[in-house]
Every structure is written in structure tokens, then in C-alpha cells.
């Protein structure tokens, strides 16, 4: 963390990135005063935040075009992440292979952003053990948060709690600590959902409402059985970004639980995000149903 004497120009950018305000990150990068004189590490972090924000809003080609072969390791990693996310099977394999080459390089293999990208890609590959191999040693709050997420995806909320406690010991009020706390609370369920709701409420008071925060609040309400209020928040989120994947997916879930038709949202989701987990679950469920029908007759 930068010294308290001088302002941390990346603080706002980081927090905007964590809560899903990607456009604010992109405009914020331009707004950093020229006299700020960022260190090389800070410059690399700034650029990686910028390009990761572009990825998050779907501007994959821009990232691939702008990051040249001579860029620093973190940016190379971000570029490979873009190639992975936007490519077909061939692109994915190529990106994974190059990532492994970078990871094997002793000079740059321990770079936090590189490891973060590796964890992300391996999570997409559902290789959670492999992902943890690269992220488990922590080192940054983002890596620790990724550890929490990986443990949750492995359905090991007990290990997720351990990782969360490490984050809390470092900085309990860090935005990522709060977010990770909310994730764990939501997955564990029960009375902890209320704490998750309070965390998202705090974030929405501190930052402009983003789709991520609105979905977080809506999820808490859904898991408390309050689907009406959740729907209101999700529609507010849809108003912000009509193509937000999680908003559409959660609107499908919420509408079904309200006894309403979800086909419109489902169709929008299929059009905008054909690879979304809900769409995949839907098609695999259809196949499973058909197979079960044949077996029963």
C-alpha cells in the first residue's frame, strides 16, 4: 500500500474495479493527473486495471490490439486472458500453453497478476486444484479473494472461511475483504445472508450502484425468500446495462420463483451471452431430460 503521505491515485480505480464500475475505471485512468509520477509498478497495475476493465465490458479486440509483444509481464498475462476468453477451442489451448510457459519462467512466474490470470483461466477450465496451486500463497488481496472464490466453487466453504480470515487479518475494511465476506455468507446461507445483505448495502452507500452490487443485494433478498423486492433491484440493474449477463440470469431465476414467465429474459441471455452458465445448464438439462425419457419408456 502506498504511503499515507501522498494520495494513492489507484485507490479509487481499484475500488471501482472491484465493485464492477468498469466504465469508471476506464475514465478514471484518463483523469489521473500527469504530475502524479506513478512508479513502474503502479503504472503496470494501472494499465492492467484498465485492460481488465475493457475485458469486463467485452472489448476484447481492443485489448489484443493494444498490448504488444514488448509489454510487461502483467499486461502479457492480461492479453492471454483476453485471447482465452474470446477465442474458440484453439485459442483457448494456445493461451493456456503460453500461460504455462510464462508461469514456468522463474523470472516472472511469481508475478501476482500473472498468477491471478492463471487462476482465472483454470477456474474457467474447472481445474480448481490447478488454480489453487498458483493462487494459494496469496500475496495480494485479489489473490486471496480468488482463493475464497475457488474454494466456494469447489463447494468447500470451510476452506473459503479460512481464506477470508486471512484477508480480515490483513485489512478487514478492504473492499475485497467485504465482498469476499459477502460471498461466503451467501453460500453458507442461514442467518449469514443478512450480514451479506448489510455488506452490499454498505457498498451501495459508498459507491454508485453497479450491476454487481445490485445483483448482490438482489441475491440476498432472493435467498431470504423476498423475490418481489429482488426483482425490483434486478430491473434497476437491467436499466443500467440491458445486456448484463448476471442480471438477465438472475431475472430468469427470480421470475420463475415469482411464478412469472422468464422466456423473454432467457432469450435475451441466449442472444447476448450464449456461453453463460445458465444457458449451458439449460441445454444440458434438456439433454438430460430427453435421455431420462428414453430410459423410462
Amino acid at each position, binding site marked *: 500500500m502506498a504511503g499515507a503521505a501522498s494520495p494513492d491515485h489507484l485507490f479509487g480505480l481499484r475500488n471501482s474495479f472491484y465493485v464492477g464500475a468498469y466504465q469508471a475505471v476506464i475514465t478514471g485512468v484518463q483523469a489521473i493527473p500527469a504530475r502524479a509520477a506513478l512508479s513502474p509498478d503502479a503504472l503496470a497495475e494501472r494499465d492492467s486495471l484498465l485492460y481488465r476493465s475493457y475485458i469486463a465490458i467485452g472489448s476484447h479486440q481492443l485489448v489484443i490490439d493494444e498490448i504488444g509483444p514488448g509489454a510487461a509481464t502483467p499486461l502479457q498475462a492480461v492479453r492471454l486472458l483476453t485471447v482465452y476468453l474470446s477465442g474458440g477451442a484453439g485459442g483457448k489451448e494456445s493461451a493456456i500453453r503460453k500461460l504455462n510457459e510464462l508461469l514456468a519462467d522463474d523470472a516472472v512466474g511469481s508475478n501476482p497478476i500473472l498468477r491471478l490470470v492463471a487462476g482465472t483461466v483454470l477456474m474457467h477450465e474447472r481445474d480448481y486444484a490447478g488454480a489453487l496451486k498458483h493462487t494459494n500463497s496469496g500475496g495480494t488481496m485479489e489473490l486471496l479473494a480468488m482463493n475464497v472464490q475457488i474454494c466456494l466453487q469447489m463447494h468447500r466453504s470451510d476452506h473459503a472461511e479460512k481464506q477470508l480470515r486471512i484477508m480480515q487479518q490483513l485489512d478487514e475494511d478492504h473492499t475485497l475483504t467485504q465482498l469476499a465476506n459477502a460471498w461466503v455468507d451467501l453460500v453458507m446461507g442461514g442467518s449469514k445472508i443478512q450480514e451479506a445483505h448489510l455488506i452490499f448495502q454498505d457498498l451501495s452507500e459508498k459507491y454508485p450502484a453497479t450491476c454487481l452490487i445490485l445483483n448482490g443485494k438482489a441475491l440476498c433478498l432472493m435467498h431470504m425468500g423476498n423475490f418481489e423486492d429482488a426483482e425490483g433491484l434486478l430491473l434497476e440493474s437491467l436499466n443500467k446495462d440491458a445486456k448484463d449477463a448476471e442480471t438477465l440470469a438472475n431475472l430468469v431465476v427470480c421470475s420463475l420463483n415469482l411464478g412469472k414467465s422468464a422466456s423473454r429474459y432467457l432469450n435475451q441471455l441466449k442472444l447476448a451471452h450464449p456461453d453463460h452458465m445458465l444457458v449451458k445448464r439449460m441445454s444440458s*438439462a434438456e439433454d438430460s*431430460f430427453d435421455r431420462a425419457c428414453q430410459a423410462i419408456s
Partner: protein
Amino acid sequence: MLTKFETKSNRVKGLSFHPRRPWILASLHSGVIQMWDYRMGTLLDRFDEHDGPVRGVHFHATQPLFVSGGDDYKIKVWNYKTHRCLFTLHGHLDYIRTVQFHHECPWIVSASDDQTIRIWNWQSRTCVAVLTGHNHYVMCASFHPKEDLVVSASLDQTVRVWDISALRKKSVSPADDILRLTQMNTDLFGGVDAVVKYVLEGHDRGVNWASFHPTLPLIVSGADDRQVKIWRMNDTKAWEVDTLRGHMNNVSCVMFHAKQDIIVSNSEDKSIRIWDATKRTGIQTFRREHDRFWILSAHPEMNLLAAGHDSGMIVFKLERERPAFSVSGDTVFYVKDRFLRFFEFTTQKEVQLAPIRRPGSVSLNQSPKTLSYSPTENAVLICSDVDGGSYELYIVPKDSAGRADYLQDAKKGAGGSAVFVARNRFAVLEKSSNQVLVRNLKNEIVKKSPLPIATDAIYYAGTGSLLCKAEDRVTIFDLQQRLILGELQAPSVKYVVWSSDMESVALLSKHAVVIANKKLVHRCTLHETIRVKSGAWDENGVFIYTTLNHIKYCLPNGDSGIIKTLDVPIYITRVIGNNIFCLDRDGKNKLVTVDASEYIFKLALLRKRYDHVMSMIKNSQLCGQAVISYLQQKGFPEVALHFVKDEKTRFNLALESGNIQIAVASAKEIDDKDHWYRLGIEALRQGNVGIVEYAYQRTKNFERLAFLYLITGYMDKVGFMCKIAGQNNNLMGQFHNALYLGDAMKRVEILENAGQLPLAYITATTHGLTEIADRLAAELGENIPSLPEGKARSLLIPPAPLTASGDWPLLRVMRGIFEGGLDATGKAELEEDDEAAGADWGDEGLDIVDASEAMANGGDGFDAEEGEANEEDGEEGGWDLEDLELLPEAETPKNAGNARSAVFVAPPPGMPVSLIWTQKSSLAGEHAAAGNFDTAMRLLSRQLGIKNFAPLKPLFLDLHMGSHSYLHALATAPIIPVAVEKGWSESASPNVRGPPALVFTFPQMEDRLKAAYKATTDGKFPEALRQFLSILHTIPLIVVDSRREVDEVKELIEIVREYVLGLRMELKRKELRDDVNRQQELAAYFTNCKLQRVHMRLVLGSAMGLCYKQKNFATAEHFARMLLENNPNEAQARRARQVQQQCSGKKDSSELNYDYRNPFVVCGATYVPIYRGQKDVSCPYCGSRFVPSIEGQLCTICELAVVGADASGLVCSPTQLR
């Protein structure tokens, strides 16, 4: 010590508070008596008729009088309203030390260096008693507050208590001779009417002061021996109780506090000391550097003290009177009488929560100073000045209202101020290091942060932010980023009030209110001449605040004004409309109702909410010249017009706003030249020719009028004006008008009439009027003027106007918001038709014709065999809600090349929640939600005989899709599906898995049933059938919680089954166009289904009509009778009775396969009756009946199960599985 007021003057020797007004008298060594308003800090008056120092002064309790005694041996009684001395009392032979009015009797007591105490009657202006006994200067004397006693102190080292009850008895019945005798006796023999009751000896040197306790039989005295002594007395004796030591020089004055259990003394050692009257210990000492103290005074009602010293006086109090409070939502939390309380604004209910422990040490000014509240945690943070600044953190249990138990022990700490900055975080200011410590609710330090400016106090400024107060400015500091977000110059801020949306903040200083936005961008500053006390924001963004004596408002643009005058200070907690909630200095909740219309009106103007302005104008809610002036200043003269009654003001406003019509009306009322003239000018400026003409006419301004007609082209009117001028013998006017007209002949005539023959001749000649010229030449004779030669003659005629126009063209302006009324047109209510039966119900008109014959159909059937009882499958138990113990599986990690990774062993994956669901459940819906479709189908097949799952596919998919939500965690990382579980509550344990919250519920089925019923009533049979089928298709997948609900589900299946059968037959009937017999049979079978009565009536009506048309009169009559037994409405009943009459005694014309005398059920596939006794098979799910030949086929009613299949029965609740 909280100094309220301070003066600089000559030495102050005497002080007196007024009992009710904020005034104090100070008598000076210079001989002047000053009267101050200590609240406003102004000198009201001065009285300077004494020669030499004035050592005693006292206000009367009720009259506008005060009394003074001076070194000139005189006692003067003054009327401070008339500013003069009424009279002087003579008699004392030396300096007078103190004077005092009695609180009831018209007496004054005075103490003097002549060693006597005298009691005077200030109404008769005589001395009624001389109290002798002291053998040195008497330094003070005063009446007891209630009893007939006087206490005096003397340099003879004694305190004496005198009994003056005889004086009261005597004064009850005064008589002239007795009075004279008393006077003579007093002069000769001393105070025979007042006797010494006690002589209190104990002081070692001269006693300067002694005073009674307000209520207790105690006396306190101060002396030159530097000691304060406390004495106690009863009916027979008095004795010394205690001695208070600490003063380092002569004690000048000492007294009991009027309200608190303390003694206050001051001394020539330049100090004021506060003592605990019970424990007899010194509490606090206040010192001045150079000034000796001489006199003290206590306010009889309020918590105020005054002290006089060598260079002036101070008015002060010892305890803070402002209650510590915090407003959160609809509630204010505050501390009163050492209890934490809250007050709800909507219910106006006060609740005492719990006592707050008192600090161990007895000290002054230790009441709470500020209070901060966190609503989500129900935590209260109380700060005080104890030990140089400290805080206490209380967690209030949610159900503690009304209980007197102590709160759990408060967590304490030292700090300059402490406030909540987040839900579970509070910040404590550490002044020594100029940093804040951020603590959690366990009082543990979470973070330390240096502050950017030298901070005196901190306040809440939004989640994670602080407002830091320095000497002359404030900043907003983000604790996480450690950045200054805003800064503002503001004088010594004392209190901070945020608006409820945290967008605006008011900074209250001693004499100023500064308004800023949430980044401390300045909006406006209000300066007050007296102290600002409190404030709150109303819901419109207006800041309402109190000073010592007013409630005032501040608009967003900085306009302010007075709402109400106050008698005592109040502390605003909430503003709701016209209601202002506040706390008074005793900590009581009060509601002050004010008239907010003035500032609401100004706010509406400011925000251009002219509809509000209009409605307020219509309702005449506003009045007063100030509002009118405000409207004029702010550029709304047209609005002010609605309030003005004075015609001249109204006229001026109308002109200012360009409202000619109102100006005309006012001018008519006023009717003087000047106003008509000004109206004409304004109308001319606007081009309103009609009004200009009218104005000129009213003032008979004919010249201007003629010119107006000229320039507007009304030449005929100019001619008319010329005639009028002629009638008035106005030759010049007439000539002018002739010039305007270009009428040369008229001009010649006018000149001739005026006797100007030469001019007339020249004019006639010039304009070619030859005959007239010749006639004039003859009259002139030899005096014909010579015409200039050689010049071409030309006519001098004004140009003719092209058009005659009136008013100038004006743009059509929308009627102002303040004109015209709003006509509220009520909308007609749409009437809804009850039970609108659709046309499909065959309500065609009946052709009533004669029938010929009928034939009865008969036949016996066998009793239906009882269906097999459903056997319940003994499935394993229901949900096991115990904690899951996941056994970690041993897994050898892959050997990786990275040495660091080799040490790490990834945990094995856990079990998804959906898998846990499948392991625990035997309910098909829950397996479907988990995506375990095979098991779900097997369960349904075994329980209900379902083979056709195609209709259930969308339901299965919806259950599965609705079972998980999607949590977006890190950017670009995969999303986390989170299982949506059933039955959440606040106290549910985490990590204990509940069953899935299914998207289909039994209440939904009931809603669908209502919709299906409605569609049936409306005759929309395909829609109704679709609805009923959707219910049948969903029921296998729903889960209910109780046995009663299971029974309701089964009942629902039966209801729906009947309707599906009936509707299918009805639709089939409509397909048959030629087979009228079959149509009648299907209609008849429909009446055999178990339907709601409203539908049964419709079905019977349909069947009745159909049979009647086909001349099956006996069957039609049967249906008519059944219909009449089913409570039909009037139309239905009339129709049924007609059919009954027409069909009575007649027979069916054709034979139908329908025997209503024989119980039967209808086969769901072939739609033929199965009479009792005949064999049938049934659907294992919906229970529909079929002829035996249908066995093994798909049920045509529910479309799911196989007819005749074995099945264990519906399982839709965990309660069925125990």
C-alpha cells in the same frame, strides 16, 4: 464553567438576577448601577444617582422595581420602566452593605456599617424595625425564602438569625396610633419587634456573608478567616455542622445553589469554588489572574450564577443543559436523568431503555456531551468531558424496551470525541497525536489514521468518512483513502447537522450557520447576533434552526426568516411539515406546531413550483406586507398583486408587472391625475392604444389625445377633437388639430375668427383658396401683406396615414400560472358486469313449440367396484437437518514441476448443494430442481404411474433453472451458482442445508384454479382447459409442508379432473355438427360432472336448451327441474320455468344413452356412461374412470399416466415420509 456573559467595568459590588427576564443588575464601586440583558449581551440602562459606591442591589420579584443601597447611607427604590428613582429611604448612619426585597410583604431589609439591620416598608416608606445586637459592621442580611427569619453576618465574627414573626403579625392590622407608638418605641428602645433567635459563633474573624438554604434548615457562611461554615438549625437551637477549607484569602460571598446540591463561594483570593453540599468536599475551582471576587448571585429559577470582581462580572453556569441526542430515522435517542431513552416521532411515544452508569467520581459537567447511534447494530456511543474526554459504547438489546436492567457493561475509552463511521465501526479522536483510532464493536482498534489538520472534534460525514473540525475550518476526510474530500472555512463549528439524504450539511457555530453540500462546497452563510442552538433539515431541503429566542428557517438560496419566538431555548430533533419535535433543557420531548407556509411559499417560488404557489394563493394561506415585499424583490410582482389591498400599492405592482387590466381597475378607484397619467405612459409603452385613449380622456388631456389619434391614423377622431377644442374656445388646440388634419380651409377660418386676417389671407393664398383670398383682400384693403416673390409655392400637408390601426400586435402569451383555475373533472366510474356469461354457453332464444311425444330410457347397472386403496410406499425418512460432516477424501496431488506448488495440497472438492438435495429427498419436485431427472421420473412413475413425461419437460426445466442464483464475484472469473433454499429465517443456522425453494407452489395452483374458473364462466373453454391441465401437470412436482395441505392437493386433483373431463366433452360436442343425439348426450354427461354451482347452472341451462330444441321434452324438463334446484338467477329461473311449462307431460322425441335415474361415471376416453355395477378401470394419477378396453393406454384426461397401472400414490410432502 460555561461562561455565558462577561462585562468589563469598575469593581462590581452588588448583583441581582431578574426572576423571569434575562436581565441582571450590577452595582459598581463607582456608584453606577447597570442593567444588562445577559442573553443578548447588551447594556439596557444605567442609574447613577448614588454618591459613592453602591454595594447592594436587588430586583423585586414581581414589580418593576429594584432597590439599591450605597455608601452615601441612602437606600433608593427605582422603577426601571420609568428609569427613575421613586424615593429614598433615610435612617442608616453609615455605609449600607446589602439590601433585599421580601418576596411577599412590602419590606426591604438592609445591612449597614452602623451595626444595625433595618426593615423598611417601601409602600409607606417608613422604617418598621431596627435590629440591634451586632457590635461591628453588619456585612449582609437577607430574608428567609419562606419563614419569618432574617440571617445576618457581621465583622463581630457572628452570624445571627432573627425572628421577625412579630413584625408580620403587627403589620397585618396597622393602626395609626399603634404605628406611631411603634415608631417611637423603635427610636427609643431598639428592635422590640424582632428578636435574636440564634447567635452562631465559630468563625475566627469577621463574617462577610451568610445565607439560608432554599429549602433545608441550613445556613452557609463565609468569613475573613478564609473558611466556609455550614450550620444547621431547628426550632430551639443552631449549631455548626462542618467547615470547608480551601480559600486562601477572605471569603467574600457564599450561597447554596438553587437547583443543585452544591455550595458556591468566591473570595479575595481571586477564585470561585464549588463544593459538594452533602460530602463537604471541594469539587472545582475557577480562578482569575488579577481580579478579586466580591459578590455572587444565583438565579432563582435557572441554572445560572453570576460573580462580580474587580474589573466586571461574569454570568456562568456549571452544567451543560443541552441534552445529548442523536436522530436516526423515525427515532431520537437521548440521555436524560442518567437514562438512555428514545422517542418515536410517529407514535410520539417515549421509551426508557436502560440506566447509564454514573462515573465513580463526583464532578461537575459530566453529563453526556454527544451521542452517536448505529441503527443496524443498535449501538449507542456516548461522549462526555469526564477525565478530559471519554466515551462509552453501549449495545442495546433489541427487546430491552421497558426493562430497567443495566445494559451490558459499557466499553470505555479515552478520546476527544467518538462517532460511528460505519455500521460496526467507530472513530475516536486522539488529540495528543492528532489521529483517529478506528474501533470495532468490541472496542478493539482496527486501524489508526493520522488526520490532515489539527483537529478539535470529529463528526460523521458518510460511511467511512469523517468531518474534522479545526479552529477555523472543517474538512471531510476519507478514512480508507486517507484523502481530504472537501474543505471549507467555517468559524469554530460546534454542531453538525446532515440532511437525511446526506447531500447537505449545516455547520452551527456560536453566531453563524454555514450551509454546504456533501463535499463542503459552500452554499450560504447566515450570521446571527445571538447564539445558534440547534437545527434540523425538513423534507423539502429547508434548514430549520433555533437561536436562544427564535425558530428560524434557511432556504437553499440563503434566504432566512423567523418562524416563531421562543421563551426558552429548545433543541430541534425533527421537522415534519408544520411540526417541530424538540428537546428542552430538562430533556423533555416537545412538539411545537408552527406555520410553515411562509417558507414553503418562498421555497415554491425558488423552485419555480408555480402550481404550489398558485394553490397557496388560492387558499389565502399567506398574508402580510413582508411577503409582498419579498415577492417584489424576487421578481414576482404579479404574484404580489394577489395579496395587495391598498389600491396605490396595487397600482404600482400592476404597472411593474405590466398588468394593465388591474392597473386600470386601481386607477379607477384612485381616480387622480397622476395615476391616470402614469397608466397612460405604461399603456403607451405596451402599445395598448385603447387604454391610452381612456387614460387621456379621464384626465381631459386633449392635446395628448389628439396627437394619439394622429399617430394612430384616426383622422375622424382628430376632427372630433378639433370641434371640441372649438367648443372650449381653445384656439391653439383647435389650430393644432387643423394642422394635424391638413385642413387649410379650417385653418383660414380659425385665423379669421381669431382676428388674424393677414395670416388668414396668406394661408388662403398659399393653399390656392382664391375666393376666400379675394374676400379677405377686400376686407384688408390697403393692408394686404406682400407675398414673397420668386418662390415656388407648395402645400404643407402632413402625410396621410396608410392604415388606421388600433392596439399594437401582441404575441399570444400562455395564461400565467397564476391566472385561471384548475377545473377538476371527475371521471365516470366504469361499471363492471357481474357474471357475464359468454355466448358459447348456448343462450340462444328458445323457440317454444308444441311437442308431440317422448320416450323414456331405462336400464339397470351394476355397482362400481371399489378402487384399490393406495398403498403408501415406505420410503426412507425425510430431511435430515443435522450438520453435514464431509469426510475429506484422500487425493494425491499431481506432481508439478514448480517446487513451491509441490508443498501445497489442494483440498478435495466438497459436495454441491444439489447433490445433497438428491441424497435426502424422495420428492420428485426436489429431484427435478437438483437436475436429477432420472430419479424424478422414476419416482413419478412408481408413485403415480406417469409414463408420458413430455408435458412435464418445461416444468422440469423451470424447477432446475429456478433452483440456483448466480453470484458475480471477481471480474472475468466464472460466476458462482448459489443454491436457493427454502424456509430462510433470521435465526437459521449457516451451512445447514435446507430443501430447494421450488418455483411451483400450492398457492400458485390455487391462483390458477381461480383463473381457470373464470375462463370457464366466460365460456372460453380452450383457455380453461389449458389452465386446468397446467394444474394437473404441475401437481406431481409441488411440495407442501403439512398433512392438511396434502389432503388439499388431493382434493384439488379431483376438482380439476372433473372439469377437464367436462370441458373435453364440451369441446367434443362443438365439433359434432350433424349428430344431434350425440350432442345432447355429451351435454347431458357434462351435467354429471362435479362442478361449482355457478358452472353447474350454466351447464344445466345449456343442456336444457339443447334438448328442448331437439324436442326431447322429458329430458329437457329434467334439466329444468335440476336448474331450479340450483338457485338460479332470475333470468335462468324464468327460462327454466318456461321450459318446464312447455315440457310438462311430454316425452322425448329420440332415445338418448342417458339415464339420470341410474348413477354413472363417464369414461374419459370414449365419453360413454359407466353405470353402477359395470366394470371400469381408473387412472392411477388423476383417478379418471375408463371402460375396461382403455386399460394400458395413456390417460386422456391428465395425459400423463397409464390407465390401470399400479401406483403407490401421490407423495408431495416430507410429512408423508415419516
